[in-house]
């Protein structure tokens, strides 16, 4: 049976500037060019610029739980922000078929003086849900986050784990077609994490999931595909997760002892 394509990333590039002064100079120059409708020539590098993401191709299908591994600064978050529509592309094309929800910082956009319930309305709105849709999902979010007794208390009284559980539950409660989780799986205690893993496996039948983590154990438990990003390029892709992890450990992770990870 043909797999349903949810995300198609084709030859995508993104550049950044290393130097603050040059970054301001290029920024002002871009603003002037936009004002006078002059081509920005985004496909060319200027002084102190570099390709943070270079010629990336990626396809995500329904049922995929794709783990993207890579060292710090390899471009994982930048790529996820481009897919989410937060950063524009300098080259290439991204086609998204369906609704996308991204979880970058699990507690971002939540406010300590407001109750858990009020925060569900605010954060749910950020995911594009309207009042009616949030009301419909409210019971599920409260139950899944296990916050029944505290949902009307101010978020500031919650522990870090409780806030994370709420943030994760809201994101998953939006029922996206593509779910992006960037370093967001350190949720609550061990039993809640296990509950999340089971939930992700269960919802992946109806959607595609991309998650970014440095925790090798989570990759083993969850992923059915693995891609390794190094210096802005994909250097490895496989459905054989354990082999991919070996590749990452041997070629990318700068470790003195292998036992540290395995």
């Amino acid at each position, binding site marked *: 049976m043909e797999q349903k394509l949810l995300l198609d990333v084709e030859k995508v590039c993104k550049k950044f500037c290393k130097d603050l002064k040059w970054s301001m100079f290029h920024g002002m120059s871009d603003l002037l060019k936009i004002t006078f409708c002059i081509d920005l020539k985004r496909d060319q590098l200027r002084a102190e610029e570099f390709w943070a993401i270079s010629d990336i191709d990626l396809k995500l299908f329904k049922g995929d739980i794709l783990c993207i591994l890579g060292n710090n600064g390899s471009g994982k978050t930048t790529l996820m922000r481009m897919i989410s*529509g937060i950063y524009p592309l300098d080259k290439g094309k991204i086609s998204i078929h369906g609704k996308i929800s991204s979880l970058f910082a699990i507690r971002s956009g939540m*406010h300590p003086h407001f109750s858990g319930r009020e925060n569900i309305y605010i954060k749910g709105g950020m995911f594009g849900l309207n009042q009616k849709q949030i009301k419909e999902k409210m019971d599920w979010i409260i139950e899944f986050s296990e916050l029944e007794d505290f949902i009307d208390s101010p978020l500031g009284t919650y522990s870090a784990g409780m806030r994370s559980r709420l943030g994760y539950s809201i994101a998953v409660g939006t029922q996206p077609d593509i779910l992006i989780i960037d370093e967001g799986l350190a949720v609550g205690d061990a039993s809640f994490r296990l509950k999340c893993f089971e939930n992700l496996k269960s919802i992946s039948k109806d959607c595609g999931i991309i998650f970014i983590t440095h925790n090798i154990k989570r990759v083993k438990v969850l992923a059915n595909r693995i891609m390794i990003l190094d210096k802005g390029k994909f250097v490895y892709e496989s459905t054989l997760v354990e082999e991919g992890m070996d590749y990452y450990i041997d070629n990318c992770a700068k470790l003195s002892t292998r036992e540290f990870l395995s």
Partner: protein
Amino acid sequence: MKSIVYTPESNHQKSLADNLRELWSDLRNFRHLLKNLVILSLTKQYKKSILGISWLIISPILSVVVWVLLQASGLFNPGDTPVPYVAFVLLSNSIWMFFISFYHGISDCILGRGGELLQNNFPKIIIVFERIIVSIINFVIPLTLSILVLLLFGARFGWEALFFLPALLPLVFLGIAIGLVFAVIKVVAVDFTVLFDNVIDVLKYLSPVVYSTAVASDLIQDIIKWNPLTYLIDFPRKLLLGEGMDAWELYLLFSLISLALMILAFRFFYLALPWVFEKVTL
């Protein structure tokens, strides 16, 4: 199932009409978030206060007291003003604060909430509209107090006063236009904003805010004659005070220019912000 395609040209291929359609669609699709953010913004500053939201009333009352004391001290000797000077300045100051609240609120909103906007993908224009609505709400309370003080000092209002609020719209448009342009520029570098903050401070004294258009100085008379803000401030103020509709042609001209500037500023915001947005982290 909804499909979206992003390319480097996605933004530039959009016409002005496309930008306005996008603005409308963003506001329609995220209206619930907008409502919640406005409530959040109005209540969060007082959430940890004993007097709570009553500060929304207490702060303007304190301003009234200060101005009344200044008037009693005989500190000012302004031009010929149609109502007692203290009431005149209270009203004019409210109008001026209303105008610059759009500039300050909107120009700060992207840089000030950059972290939140980087982690949550919702249209950035929602934050702009949150600032616009909060500015309007924050204006209504001091305005009501100013009108009460005007009544207290003997002012009586005619039918023209009903058009005071609609007549302020061009000033709102201009404030929004300036705010949107600086919201984008501020993400790249703050130099121009620091400069413009000083320009705005000076502009207050080059516009008929703390004095009337009948001020004695010839130099000031010449400056305010060429200052578009004169007409955008003075026309609605005269409507409220029942002083006729002088210079309505110029008011109309600058109103249309303000509206055009605001529409162009929305286009600039939509076209330019995505390309510089990554710099909010710098």
